[in-house]
């Protein structure tokens, strides 16, 4: 009985393997395009407005930011002034102005993973503890797996780069890229 179960699990694992490999890796041509986008994102992360915004938030966290919890964040409508303030600040304006047609989402986090600016409200108020924030905080670039955007039905991939201040990571910039658009 147990051995039959094990065999079934093994079969399922073998069936899922190709999909898993496809999700993890990208076609080299597509990866080249993604790399080109990452270069631009790295450049964007050095924009003085972004660096200043992250640095200021790290230095002094506003009380309403400090009081924000994941539950409160989840219940906040996107048109609430608090959320809108994160889409209308100078850093958000820069991200919006410099985003390419391939960008599906973008958000800037401070050292603690709390939001500094974004284009669309994120699912989480803090991304601390998640690789997309922790990796850039260690100075590295992070690239996520291919995923399907439920809103558009398009394949997308997230990449994250550190926001550096004097060569030291002070935050992260996470950008969603439309693979459908990149490959078309």
């Amino acid at each position, binding site marked *: 009985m147990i051995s039959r179960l094990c065999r079934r699990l093994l079969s399922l694992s073998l069936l899922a393997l190709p999909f898993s490999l496809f999700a993890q890796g990208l076609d080299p041509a597509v990866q080249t395009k993604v790399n080109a986008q990452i270069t631009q994102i790295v450049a964007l992360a050095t924009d003085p407005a972004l660096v200043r915004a992250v640095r200021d938030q790290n230095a002094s966290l506003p009380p309403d930011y400090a009081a924000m919890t994941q539950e409160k964040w*989840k*219940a*906040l*409508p*996107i*048109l609430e002034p608090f*959320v*809108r303030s994160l*889409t209308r600040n100078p850093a958000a304006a820069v991200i*919006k102005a410099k985003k390419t047609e391939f960008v*599906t*989402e973008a958000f800037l986090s401070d050292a603690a993973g709390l939001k500094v600016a974004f*284009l*669309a*409200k*994120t*699912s989480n108020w803090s991304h601390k503890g998640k690789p997309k924030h922790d990796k850039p905080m260690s100075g590295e670039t992070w690239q996520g797996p291919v995923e399907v955007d*439920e*809103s*558009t039905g398009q394949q997308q991939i997230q990449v994250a780069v550190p926001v550096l201040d004097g060569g030291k990571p002070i935050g992260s910039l996470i950008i969603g890229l439309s693979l459908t658009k990149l490959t078309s």
Partner: protein
Amino acid sequence: MSFGSTIRARLLLLLGGATSLAIALLLGTLALVHWIRTVETRLRAETQLVLNNSQKSTYDLIITQNSLQKLLRLRDIDELEKALAGYEEQAKRQKTALATRPALAPSLAALDTAAKTVLDELLLGNNAGAIDRFVNNYSRAFTAMLDALKTDSDAQQAAAQAESVRNEAFLTRLLIWVIGGAAVLLGVLIFVGYRFQASISLTLQTLARELDRGAKVLSENVAQIASSGQTLAESASHQAATLEENSASLA
């Protein structure tokens, strides 16, 4: 009043009556035709309006659905806010247009509620949840709304057709009454004409009899005069003979 003037007056009366009746019938027929055309035009316009309203409502519903669907694809809050205003304006327009049809109120309310569940998720930034509500709530309510719209439009069309049938039946009845009325009037005219002819004939017969009697009297008088003339001539002749005899005897 003389005999001739009485006949002229009666003839004028008959002619006047017949002319008045003909004019009344003509005007009545014209008025009836005009009324029938007016009713037909109104019914046609009403039926067309029902069809137009139905098409426009369907179009409005589809536009609203597209507006809502478009919101689901947007991630940028600025774009979303702008598109949301457009959607709300369109939804308001749709609501106003459909408010004139009470039969659709329950379906419209259900559609509004379903749209609200989508927007609630969307406004929380939960696009996946919004899509789920759109597929499971809004789409079903939308289909029900379209069904209700079709049912209501069919009912309105059926009502217009029923009114058309009612009007047609009324017109048929009216036509029968008009023809009947015209026949009665024609009968009255024939009766009056007959009475008029009879009265003229009676007068003429009386006149002929009187003329006949007058002629007879005249003839008798002429005979009598002739007889008297004969007698007179005979008397004159006799008198002349007497005178001649007397003269001879005297001579």
